[in-house]
């Protein structure tokens, strides 16, 4: 069977303290903080960030399938995973699919990718899971949620954790739902789902998964219990008498429950700690249950993720106000600037420049070696014509040459900070900065590139790259 070859995670820069929410609403309470996707992030951009870490330094030519799981797809009737595919500059011959409408889209994308990799011989498959959790103000879901992404590369060679067994069960019962166009999900009475849905489903999955693999509970080194409802996981852990050290910390106090991304996020943290031979069980319950049993191989001892979850967690800004949070999620409408709305990105130019727009691939002059962004036909340095080769800049480091703090430009997070940035080894571009504290920006600051949704205009999301202070 196939297994995990590599993985990556992503947690956005911003957090909101739960007590900030409670204080604003006068409802009090809430401990810890939840992660918040910035105004220029969506589930696609976050999936790209996790997948970039997952694929960093790797040959992607063997990837033949990409499954993207989320409950908040940026588009309906336009393939969101095609945007991820473009941003990762993957080969054209990849089958891309969006899995959505349920939290099961998350672990489901990993199982699907595993099956695709297993079926394709030497091929690999990418699973990307990403979510932005939105709840109605004063509700529990808003506080409990968190925004994050995870990505896994699956294949049959160089596997760091092989998948030994999977188990799935489906149940039609009313627990959580949302109609198209509605902003907030609704929920049936919690006791109903706990006793008639999630409880029995988790128990069945644990039993079924272990018996399929012929493994005893005592053989497990780690268990991921993923349920959007914290009572459901607590009840299961108690019922199974799982030792606390066995249960992977759900990070609810520092991230929140990140929806379809959460099972993957926690599996990644278990893999970060796993030693050869360790068995990890992942159980994810919502409208049914999915479970995966993994066994770390010897290769895991030499595997280092591009970034650990803890690295993302310490790189943060926690002072987001609740009003700004509501503005970012489109719940609070605010006064627009006295400037025209941005123009929608046009289809034909976006296709012509798609490797630049989506993958941040630009040009280098083969006559004189000068790097140039955006792509040029005639070299700015030596004047050579049509001597350009394509070069990827997304993973190159850069520094600020000069910058502007634009307080008039259209942005949901004024002021807009734009910098002239110079890449190590050559090349310059003017780029909007994000995840930035404007008052701290200075010449020489180190930057890295990040894929973002610049704005949405005329019903079209404008995806492109920004620079951010190195995280």
């Amino acid at each position, binding site marked *: 069977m196939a297994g995990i070859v590599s993985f990556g995670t992503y947690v956005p820069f911003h957090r909101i303290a739960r007590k900030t929410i409670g204080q604003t609403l006068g409802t009090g309470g809430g401990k810890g903080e939840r992660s918040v996707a910035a105004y220029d992030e969506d589930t696609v951009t976050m999936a790209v960030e996790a997948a970039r870490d997952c694929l960093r330094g790797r040959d992607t030519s063997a990837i033949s399938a990409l499954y993207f799981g989320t409950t908040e797809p940026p588009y309906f009737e336009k393939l969101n995973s095609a945007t991820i595919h473009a941003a990762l500059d993957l080969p054209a011959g990849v089958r891309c699919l969006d899995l959505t409408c349920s939290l099961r889209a998350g672990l489901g994308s990993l199982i699907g990718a595993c099956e695709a990799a297993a079926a394709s011989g030497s091929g690999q498959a990418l699973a990307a899971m990403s979510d932005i959790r939105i709840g109605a103000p004063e509700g529990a879901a808003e506080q409990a949620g968190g925004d994050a992404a995870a990505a896994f590369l699956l294949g049959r060679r160089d596997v760091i954790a092989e998948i030994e067994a999977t188990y799935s069960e489906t149940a039609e019962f009313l627990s959580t739902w949302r109609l198209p166009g509605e902003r907030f999900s609704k929920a049936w009475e919690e006791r109903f789902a706990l006793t008639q849905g999630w409880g029995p489903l988790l128990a069945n999955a644990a039993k079924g998964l272990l018996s399929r693999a012929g493994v005893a509970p005592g053989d497990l080194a780690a268990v991921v219990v993923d349920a959007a409802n914290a009572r459901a996981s607590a009840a299961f852990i108690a019922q199974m008498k799982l030792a606390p050290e066995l249960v992977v910390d759900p990070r609810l106090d520092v991230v929140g429950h990140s929806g379809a991304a959460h099972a993957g996020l926690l599996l990644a943290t278990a893999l970060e700690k796993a030693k050869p031979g360790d068995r990890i069980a992942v159980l994810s319950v919502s409208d049914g249950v999915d479970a995966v049993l993994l066994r770390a191989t010897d290769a895991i001892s030499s595997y280092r993720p591009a970034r650990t979850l803890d690295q993302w967690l310490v790189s943060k800004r926690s002072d987001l106000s609740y009003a700004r949070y509501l503005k970012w999620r489109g719940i609070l409408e605010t006064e627009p600037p006295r400037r025209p709305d941005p*123009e929608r990105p*046009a289809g034909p130019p976006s296709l012509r420049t798609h490797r630049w*727009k989506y993958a941040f691939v630009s040009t280098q002059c083969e006559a004189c070696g000068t790097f140039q*962004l955006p792509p040029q036909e005639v070299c*700015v340095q030596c004047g050579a014509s049509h001597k350009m080769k394509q070069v990827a800049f997304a993973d190159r480091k850069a520094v600020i040459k000069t910058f*502007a703090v634009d307080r008039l*430009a259209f942005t949901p997070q004024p002021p807009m900070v734009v910098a*002239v940035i110079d890449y190590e080894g050559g090349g310059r571009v003017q780029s909007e900065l994000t995840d930035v504290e404007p008052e701290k920006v200075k010449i020489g600051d180190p930057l890295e590139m990040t894929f973002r949704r610049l704005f949405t205009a005329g019903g079209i999301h404008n995806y492109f790259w920004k620079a951010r202070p190195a995280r």
Partner: protein
Amino acid sequence: MASNGIRDRVAIVGMGCTAFGEHWNRSLDDLLVEAAEAAFASAGVDRDRVDAYWLGTMGNLSGLTLSEPLKIQYKPVTHVENFCATGSEALRNAAYAVACGAYDCVMAIGVEKLKDSGFSGLVVTPPPSDGTQPAMTAPAQFSFLAPAYFAKYGLDAETGKEVLSRIAYKNHANGAKNPKAQFRKEVPLDQIRNSPRVADPLGIMDCSGVSDGSAAAIVVRAEDAYKYTDKPIFIKALSFIAGPAAGPLSQDYDFTTFPEVVASARDAYEQAGVKHPAEEISMAEVHDCFTPTELVLYEDLGFAERGGAWRDVLSGAFDLDGRLPVNPDGGLKSFGHPIGASGLRMMYEMWLQLRGEAGPRQIKNPKLGLTHNLGGAPGRCVSFVSVVGR
């Protein structure tokens, strides 16, 4: 030789300029008619004596924009556009048409109606694109100059801000003496320094005025000039440069200069036979769209040593009574900046000063004047320089 030039072959014999400002009750047509009729009257000609017209304005598509309101009787009207240097570009093409003998008497006219858009600042509708260009405003693009200049020449933030504020202060002081300026009062340094930030370190008082207005010139062959007026002004040089837009691409560009301005100044000085601009130029109108632009222009135009302009600003070198008065009419800052009209407005001040008609702003016995007009942004721009004299 970059260009052969038309030194002393063409003269301006009449000019008109509307007041610049918020003309809520006047249309583009009204402004064009006023400036054109003032220019006709100034040169002592009527509409039918003018053989051809060059109209500078943003996005108005055709010469009909002028021929229709003026009821021009079947004459050529050329619409030209070159960013914020549009007005100067209209004049340059008009002057060359006269110099080559195609026409005896032509008009260059510029106009803009900015205050009807309902937005603050300059609004330009870009062509359909892939959406990858940073959507910066103009003040932010020019604010790139400030941290780069301060860092290169060792100015701390406070000194840098003082230098920029001093430039705005000077231009407002000059504009206060100008009945046609958009802002006709002195502004205390403190108020400039503390004005609300628009693109750090630039405050609103570091930005040129957004305004409506029009200006026009009548151009004839030099040998005919005295038939029209006893005080014509003569064109010594006209240089226009479009750069390769290397600044945003090349790490060689450091945002403390406009290479396009350096090139157009060199070209203009060669055409005019100017060897030492800081001594030979009596006065200049330069493109002070934002205060750091004017700071850098002093150096690019050869009015100050590289890295030394900021000291000259603080010592008052470019004040009305300084060694080289810059923007005696108040500049874009105080006179206002209706895009297509600005280049011709600059020339209008040269016209008044060289004829001794600048009233309380009159510079003593000026010999050579320079206008500098810029369009685009640092590293990616067009630049115009003219030298004119008696």
